[in-house]
């Protein structure tokens, strides 16, 4: 009887966490959802809905490195496999772009799939540049919207240099993404 009650309690807690995360996600509190998912990941690692929600929240809050585990876990349904591929492309593009900025690695020879995520857009624009000498920052115009521009640069830090992408619309900063 005690075991059954304990199981019921655990199940209800699990459902509550997932539901709370979903509600917060709908309210666009992605960072909180990402940290909640990170804290409760071991208990819900086999629930693909939970893992997907956690991964999308981390993606929207620019915690790209946290996608590594969901990429490996999402494999049982068609939808999760496609999301896994989507996340893996973004993660790879982030790593390659960081490597290129830091070490002047040539990306122009690469031909990768792209996504609608801002990092992918900037990656595509950067990889279109031929081999060049390192610059302090790069300004790219969006291909679809000329008012939208992206500024890409490395911000110097004591521990690790951080890659920054700033989105501008008519010279007004909309969003700032920091990756490292």
């Amino acid at each position, binding site marked *: 009887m005690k075991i059954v009650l304990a199981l019921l309690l655990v199940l209800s807690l699990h459902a509550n966490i997932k539901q709370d995360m979903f509600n917060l996600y709908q309210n666009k509190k992605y960072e909180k959802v990402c940290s909640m998912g990170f804290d409760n990941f071991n208990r819900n690692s086999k629930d693909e809905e939970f893992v997907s929600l956690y991964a999308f929240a981390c993606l929207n809050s620019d915690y790209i490195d946290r996608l590594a585990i969901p990429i490996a876990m999402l494999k049982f349904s068609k939808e*999760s496999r496609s999301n896994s591929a989507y996340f893996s*492309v973004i993660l790879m593009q982030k790593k390659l772009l960081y490597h290129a900025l830091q070490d002047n690695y040539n990306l122009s020879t690469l031909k990768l799939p792209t996504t609608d995520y801002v990092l992918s857009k900037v990656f*595509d624009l950067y990889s279109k540049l031929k081999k060049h000498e*390192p610059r302090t920052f790069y*300004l*790219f115009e969006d291909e679809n919207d000329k008012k939208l521009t992206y500024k890409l640069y490395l911000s110097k830090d004591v521990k690790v240099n951080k890659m920054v992408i700033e989105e501008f619309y008519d010279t007004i900063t909309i969003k700032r993404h920091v990756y490292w």
Partner: protein
Amino acid sequence: MLNTRDLEQRWLRYKIKSYIPHFIIFTSIIVISVIILTFFNSDKKYAGKLLQKINKTQIEAKTDKIVITNTPKVTLLEDDTKVKSTNYKETPVISSKIQENKPSNLGDDSLKLAPSLDFMKSMQHSTLPYYKEEPVIQQEKALVISEEVQELEPIEDIQPEVVTEEEVKRITIKRRDASNDIRDIIKRFKKNNNPALSLFVAKKYYELEEYHKAYNYALITNQINRDIDASWIIFAKSLVKLKQRDMAIKTLNKYLKSSHSSSAKILRDEIISGKFK
């Protein structure tokens, strides 16, 4: 006297019989070994073919590897020299026009991956029944109150003035309940951001003739989900009530461009003709 011949024959039969199981085991072992050997031979032949294939692919891969491994080495060496020199140029702005001049097939040919968010729909559907139940409960509550009032009527003497007072009371009770319900729903809406809840609030405010609030909640609903017909209608109706007739017609026209909703068309025609005021 002992019959030695018979005894000898019997002994021989006994001996032969004792050897039979040994013989069967021996022959079966031979048969099994022969079968296994034939299988192994066929596997070896297949393996040989495979090896030949693998050898071919390895030779091809080697040629590929040469190409792949060579390129990073070259770039790394160049990187080292450039990092040491650290000749950071002041960056020119890279516009799309300049990029167009450069040969780039990446954007055109590359595969575009899109996220799949269907799992969220299923999660949302699992929560919907909870909100659907709420309005039903409110109706039940309202019915209970009206019944109580109706019961009071026959007890008191039939006087027209008293009946009107009760009617007034009934209206006030309903309003209080509605405002409490709306408050609860607004709280829930702030938590969930569910467009069904904000639409419900907009409708309730419209019914209570609080058109400004109805307009606000319909606007919020439209911002969350543009495809809800009812919220656009409430939005336009409340605009008309707020004496913004032209604005209502404009918004309905814009909405009709994307949706072709018949109810929205009817409402627009009614507003234009002056039937709906």
